[in-house]
């Protein structure tokens, strides 16, 4: 893992966040509070980002490159740029359900749980944004299960 010294501006980080599907509905002024928590990290190809069973305490955003999500040798998904993984670990410290490995050289942004919690303390709007995202997912999930049942 290489930590990048070429820093992005906060405003650019906000624009990156806004481009992600999970934050596309969140206003930029709220994302501006989240952006300072993004730490840029670079991973060389085949580096393990985290392993299945580890306690998760951060989420990752793929800025450049690809990440493989796998259980042992079984690949579950190949994630591309502007995709996010481990986002629920921002809210609860559960074990990771799968491993993540850099599929190519990649640059990720990492957001840790602890500073995120501190941010929620002072900026309830961020929490509101996140709750909205979770609600949307829950609704989508409900609709999906209704459809599959019918």
């Amino acid at each position, binding site marked *: 893992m290489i930590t990048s010294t070429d820093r992005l501006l*906060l*405003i650019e980080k*906000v*624009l990156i966040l806004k481009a992600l599907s999970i934050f596309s509905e969140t206003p*930029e*002024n709220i994302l*501006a509070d989240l952006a*300072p928590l993004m730490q840029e990290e670079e991973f060389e190809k085949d580096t393990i980002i985290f392993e299945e069973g580890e306690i998760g305490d951060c989420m990752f955003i793929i800025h450049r490159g690809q990440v493989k999500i796998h259980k042992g040798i079984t690949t579950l998904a190949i994630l591309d740029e502007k995709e996010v993984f481990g986002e629920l670990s921002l809210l609860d410290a559960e074990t990771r359900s799968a491993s993540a490995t850099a599929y190519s050289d990649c640059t990720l942004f990492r957001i840790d749980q602890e500073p995120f919690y501190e941010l929620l*303390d*002072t900026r309830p709007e961020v929490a509101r944004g996140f709750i909205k995202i979770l609600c949307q997912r829950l609704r989508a999930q409900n609709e999906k299960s209704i459809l599959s049942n019918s």
Partner: protein
Amino acid sequence: MRTNRFWLNVLNVHTSEWWIVKKLFWLQFFQGAGISFFFTAEFARFLERFPVYELPWVMVFSSVLLWLTGLIYSYYEHKLNFARFNEGIIIFMAASMLLVRVGSNFFTDDWFYYFSLAWFYVLYLLNNLEFWGIASRLFDIRQSKRLFGVISSGDIPAKFIGYTLALIFVPYTGTLNLLLLGVISMLVSIPFFRSISKSEHRHFAHAHPKQRVHHSSNTIQTLMQSFVSSVMIRRIALISMLASACIILVNYGLYANVKDAYNNDVELAKFIAMFMAGLRIIALITKTIFTSRLTEAIGVRSSLFITPAILILLTLMNLFANWMSSDEKQIFYLFGATSIAIDVLRTSINSPVLLTIMQPLPTHERLRAHNIIKGIMDPFATLFCGILLLVFFKMQQEVNLITICYTLIMLAVLWIIGTKWVNKEYLNMLISTISSRFFSQEEFSLNDPEMLQKIKDKITNGSDQEVLSILNMVASKQNPISEELLGYFLSHPSEAVKLETVKLIGLKQIVPLQHQLETLLQETTNQTVKLEVVNAICSLAEDQQTISPYLHNQDGAVRKAALTGMLTNKNKTIHSEAEKELERLLTSNERMDIDSGLQILYTTRNVYNHPAHASLIRGKEVPELAAVSIRAIGTAATDESLQALLSHLPKHEKPVIAALLRAGPKAVGHIENYIDKHRPGFSLSEQLVTVLGKIGNSESKLLLSKYLGQESLLLPVIIKALYRSKFKATNESRQIMEDLARAYTRYGAELLHMQLALNQKHIPAELLSNAIKIELHEIRELLLCLFGCMYDRDKINKVRNSFLSNQKESIANALELIEVTVKKDIARYFNILFEDTGIQERCNALRQLYTEKEYKNIDQIMGRILTERPIRYQDWTKACSLYISRKYGIRVDHLLFRKYIDSESQLLQETARYALA
């Protein structure tokens, strides 16, 4: 009626409510009198013309009419406006009485008599529905609980006076002209309704804007569902129907006798009026004097047996009298006594107790149960009795009182069985309700031995969660029964339950349980429970001897718990000893002692604060303890502690702001002084103002409204804080708020013109346009906060949620709501600004509001944003302007960038440096 403080206290009516209660009383008085006149006249006329065995046909006919009326009423109730609908009902009732009077001159056929008498039941139902509809519209749920008793008692004297007047008038007017008196009485009630209706908006719409009763769009289906699915509702409905049927049959027996005893209609009318008046006055006396005392003494469940038991007793006496003698007068009087007794018992005991029994049902279920009883079961009882009496007559060819008596006994036995079922279900429901949700003791009385036993069993055997729920209920009121029950909680195997109980005993200072606490202390092995028990014992102890073993215990934790308890002890000697010891700890040179003292202060932060706390907060003696000391700030904080706390600003913003919030109302004055004296920066001021909004007491609202009148960059924060504090605009602040609302709509119009100019397909324009969209949302939010403070807060909340749902139809509804809630000129521009149409159309419609020059280029807009005109833009919007000036080479005066280099915001500071680089 003289407004007398004594009587207001007796009736539990607040001074501000007296005017409406008075008007409701007169409204009901005149309508009640009108209906009494109608009933007296029509009943006498019917009995004079027909034999009493024709009465069942009226019952059958009226039951159909009642169902139809209920259905039509509930359909139109929600379709028409409140004033128009209710005035329409009153006029309809008066007109129908007049029509009956006029019609009786033209229609002399039998059917008209049947119809006229059946119409009485319709009028009775309409009056009931209308009156309670108005009352529930005027009062919120808390007022309803307090006032409905007074208002419902008012119904009885109204009817009593009505029947008394009928008795006085009938010899002079004749029976038929009583109908004209009825019409006049109804019409006289209209001015009272109009006055209520006019004042309703002015006095109540703002104070209690939210109608707590939400009507189902599918009423009948919902009622049926409730009936089918709820065992309790089914059983209550059954006994209510049996009660109604018994009353109808007893009255029928009486009327059969009356018919024989009186020969002409005036005589009949006089008797009916006298009988009804007597009935009402006895019911009033019984209700006000005996009902609550009786239910208190024997419990609600046993009270339900009184009416059917007395019915059986009196009916047996009727049978016995009939068997012993054939004196018609004696039987007549006995039936009269039975009728009065049962009617009185039903009105004054059975119905109120049934209402109490329904308390554990959720509010909506309770309302439905009401509707089922009144709207379905009562007409059903009338139909059932009508058919039954017709069958009897067909079989026996006469009105046989013996058969009626046997039927009454049978129904009363069923009533008793039904009551037993209700009671059984009531207990189960009550136990499951108090084990699963918060249930206050105000909602029912803990005086039934069987119920108490069930609760005790549940406390002993229930799960932790269930028992903790019951503990909440027990804690809601302090009385000897609660104290007894608390003892049972201490025997529960769960440590969590024990812990909560001990806390409650200490908090509520329940001295009689001290001995049980000592026993628990010997038995428990759980250290947390042990310390809490020591705390409670020392809080309750009345002498030093009890405390001594704990205060001088070898275990430091026990000493600390003892000291904590002593600080809340009401005995002055014990309290001051604790204070001295705490002072010793807080001013000690030993770090461990200070830590202990601070831990005690943390535990007692909402009930006690020590003067030595202030110097520890300042951190002069032991600086590293300042943070721990700040944590020990609570609602009991002294002025010195709060001053010391504020000395940490602006450095330790986060813990200080949290502590101010914990201190609550006491912090308001200190926040005001700090803002006046130190003029803090934007971010800190924003947080302090937000704390004021969260505290939300009258002082903080006053302070915030004072800030509102001052020119300040903090205006948006102040407006939001005021809204958060649930501020209601005064005459003075309303003017300021309306001016602000107009100003913000104007700013919004300018931002919309900016958006129009940025309506281009290139990145910098899109970026800035999105930022301005956020600004417009912020303006919308501020306007809604202002509207929420000035107008109907709940409606404005609905508007906000509709906007958040972001659906075209919801937004259209929201704009409609704004139209009817907000002052015309403000509402008009708000709606144009935020309706879901094209920017160009909206800009055209807002031309009158925004008359400045139009924006042509992006650099003009960026310049306007960076000079912070006309509003203080969000950091994001300013950062976007700075960013795109450099990134996309759009030239803006660099002098505008400089002030952002020293901004408190990291985002602005960084982007300004980038723009200037």
